[in-house]
């Protein structure tokens, strides 16, 4: 075929420029519409998601701060955190609506003793999303709003030593002089100035047969973490032996065959948020 260089002879068999412009313009508009309609909400959702995930990590590092205060006997701890996409509340132990009650045989007093512990909380609530993260009793627990069920993200250090038959329960109580709430960047200032209260019941060392330890957990209806605690207590996290829930009374757990029972209660005060 011969090449023709003159413009007048070329055949323009396409559509006119105006129609071409309309087609291109509508494609662009459709693209923009799709992005605003589907892409933008998706982006927002992923933003909320990443906020919640960051917060989960923050809660675990806060739990680490608690560990440093309690297990390492350090009196003060100050850490800068960023609360993203929600707010962090400090709930004093007096105001917390859930409670742990331990019942054990007190051989020195000659009676069945009980200890009631309201743990207090550090609670993160997502603004846009559904996540609720709670630091309670040295554990990090997560839950979804308006839904039943909860999960323990990080465990407290409760354990049972098989070689000595010792059950060690370490409780962490959170106190605060007033209600604190934090959103955005801030400092969490904590202190542990009071000595931990220790109960050490050495049954085997005093010639007493192995005992049952009964724990009753009452959950807060507004922040129901009962499933997470149930799974922790009855699972194999404490040791191969575990607490067993009494079928007749839900929320009551028994650990049988304890030769020595050690209960330590630390009190951590939230100085400022």
């Amino acid at each position: 075929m011969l090449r023709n260089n003159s413009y007048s002879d070329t055949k323009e068999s396409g559509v006119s420029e105006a129609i071409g412009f309309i087609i291109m313009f509508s494609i662009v508009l459709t693209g923009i519409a799709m992005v605003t309609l589907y892409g933008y909400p998706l982006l927002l959702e992923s933003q909320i998601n990443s906020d919640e995930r960051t917060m989960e990590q923050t809660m675990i590092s806060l739990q680490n701060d608690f560990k440093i205060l309690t297990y390492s006997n350090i009196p003060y701890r100050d850490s800068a955190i960023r609360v993203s996409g929600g707010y962090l509340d400090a709930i004093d132990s007096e105001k917390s609506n859930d409670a742990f009650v331990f019942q054990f045989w007190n051989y020195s007093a000659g009676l069945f003793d009980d200890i009631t512990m309201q743990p207090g909380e550090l609670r993160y609530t997502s603004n846009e999303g559904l996540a609720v993260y709670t630091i309670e009793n040295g554990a990090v627990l997560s839950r979804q709003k308006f839904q039943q069920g909860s999960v323990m993200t990080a465990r407290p250090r409760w354990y049972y030593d098989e070689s000595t038959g010792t059950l060690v329960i370490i409780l962490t109580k959170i106190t605060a002089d007033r209600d604190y709430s934090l959103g955005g960047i801030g400092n969490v200032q904590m202190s542990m100035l009071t000595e931990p209260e220790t109960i050490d019941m050495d049954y085997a060392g005093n010639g007493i047969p192995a005992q049952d330890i009964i724990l009753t957990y009452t959950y807060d209806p507004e922040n129901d973490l009962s499933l997470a605690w149930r799974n922790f207590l009855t699972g194999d996290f404490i040791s191969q032996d575990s607490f067993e829930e009494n079928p007749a009374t839900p929320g009551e757990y028994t650990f049988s065959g304890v030769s020595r029972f050690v209960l330590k209660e630390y009190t951590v005060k939230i100085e400022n948020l």
Partner: protein
Amino acid sequence: MERLDEKGQWIVLMGFIISVGIFFLAIILNQSVMVGQTTSEGVLEFPKAEIRDLRTEIIDITVAGNTPEKQNSITTLAMERENAIVWYSQTAEEPGDIYTESAIEIHFNNGVTSYYENYPLFEKN
């Protein structure tokens, strides 16, 4: 018609490759934050210093002469300070030609780490 100048295409191509590269780097970076955190937690929680301290103390005590009071003190101290269960005992002495042999059994458990050691002890006759 005039031919299109295709020499600039590599710029577009490089831009594309770099953006894909950055995307994957972002994914890796996102993962590494979590890995770093769990690793540092693991290091933090491992009670190296506690085990060392108790171990030297127990060995010194046993060499100097063990008593049930000392044993009780160690157990109470370990629970008080380190929230750990510790017990130890010395096995029966077996006399040999040159050395009398025995061993110290050390048990440590703080809920995260459980440690058991059988430390041989030789005493010259």
